[in-house]
């Protein structure tokens, strides 16, 4: 599903990724971990096509991102859900509208969009607050809205950047349960985290990044 071949990425003199080779199969659940500044966010952004590698190739679902047109990339993004570290919710839209946005761009029917948005909000436990605005809810709830927006389109791949960043252990467990349920439905899930606690009680595949290099 996700393949990286000898991928290099630098920002000026700052090398973020060095010679990264990686293969993630369809329906896998993978953690990417490593200290802050290791290159986790950069790796996710490359997979998402938000950054281009300096050299090397990235294949998503068999499509080479180096050769993809702008429009094709837009279409590919509809199959990839991304939970951003800073959530990227729109403050002037309700929770419902924020989640529905991911489906509106596909031009789906309104009734279909409404149904799927309700489902996604119910799944993350925020169905009651759908008319609230992002700034009226807690950080943990904002995190779950961001997840709802990423999964509302039933993506092939779900990428999450530090999804439990500053949540207490209880909420962290809830979020991980959520990801597990998405994974159970067949979605390929990639979670980037610097927190070791998250990994302790899992036997999931873990990719260790260190200064832009895969070390385990």
């Amino acid at each position, binding site marked *: 599903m996700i393949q990286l071949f000898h991928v290099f990425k630098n920002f000026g003199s700052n090398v973020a990724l060095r010679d990264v080779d990686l293969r993630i199969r369809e329906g896998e659940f993978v953690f990417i971990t490593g200290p802050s500044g290791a290159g986790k966010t950069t790796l996710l952004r490359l997979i998402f096509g938000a950054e281009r590698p300096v050299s090397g190739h990235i294949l998503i679902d068999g499509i080479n991102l180096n050769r993809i047109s702008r429009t094709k990339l837009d*279409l590919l993004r509809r199959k990839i859900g991304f939970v951003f570290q800073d959530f*990227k919710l729109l403050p002037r839209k309700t929770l419902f509208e924020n989640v529905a946005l991911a489906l509106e761009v596909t031009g789906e029917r309104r009734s279909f969009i409404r149904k799927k948005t309700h489902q996604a909000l119910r799944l993350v436990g925020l169905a009651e607050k759908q008319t609230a605005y992002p700034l009226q809810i807690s950080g943990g709830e904002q995190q779950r809205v961001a997840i709802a927006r990423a999964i509302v*389109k039933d993506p092939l791949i779900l990428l999450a950047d530090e999804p439990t960043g500053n949540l207490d252990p209880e909420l962290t467990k809830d979020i991980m349960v959520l990801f597990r349920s998405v994974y159970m439905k067949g979605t390929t899930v990639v979670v980037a985290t610097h927190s070791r606690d998250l990994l302790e009680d899992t036997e999931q595949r873990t990719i260790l990044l260190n200064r832009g290099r895969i070390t385990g």
Partner: protein
Amino acid sequence: MRFRLWMYFFRQALTSILNNRVFHAIGLSTMVVSLLIFGTFLILFVNLNAWLGGWGQSLTMSVYLKDGTSETKNDEIASLIRKLQGAEIKRFISKEGALRDLRKALGSHAGLLEGMSVNPLPASFEVIFKDGDGQKTDPLKMKNELESIEGVDEVQYSEEWLKRFKGLMNMVRLVGFIIGGLLCMGILFIVTNTIKLTIYSRRGEIEILKLVGATDWFVKAPFLLEGVIQGILSGIVALLALFAGYLLLSAKKMHFLGLAVLDFVFLPNEYVFSILFISVALGLIGSFIAVGRFFDV
């Protein structure tokens, strides 16, 4: 393109207009004012053309006869003149009549004429030409035809006036093009900046739309629609204002250059549609320029 997508774009455009109503109100009123200036100029042009053209239409020629034509000969000439396209004999001025007119014109200096033994003035027909259905009288052709009639000595008409009239209208037209061009550029500038401002105010949303897989077209279409709506609205408002102003003015007796003007007409339909078309086109082009660049995400 699917209908519900258009509905979505339309809703987005309306929402954006409402959210940025101050920008839009400013943009709209400047556009309306520009279109009003242009429309007012067009109305003046159309009417000026009709009025001055009207004078040109009732072209008057003086047909001077050779000395010593008989009365039957005069009748013959008169019937030949009447056969000409649009020609109408306004009056016949006999040699005596011409002298009487001259005396009257000279007034207290009429004594100058006392010493004359013979009347040197020719008899003449005053002929008016009215334009037929869509046919303009060609003064030069008429002059030639009149002069070819036997017994006619000379034909005079005021060529100068016609030339000046044409020259004036060409000047007015040129000024119109310049004003119109400048106003169009101004409107384009206004639309482009209004849409740029609304794009700027929604940049967060645009970024997220791109991140969840919106195509460029999907992001741009509502803004293009916004420009078109602005064009339609300002075109309609300007035309309504223009028409209201026209009704107000034409209700009063209009005086122009000291002359009571009888028909003060509104813009013909094709001009009305042109104004609407131009404002919509400018709205579309302006927003097109504004959405030209979208930051890559």
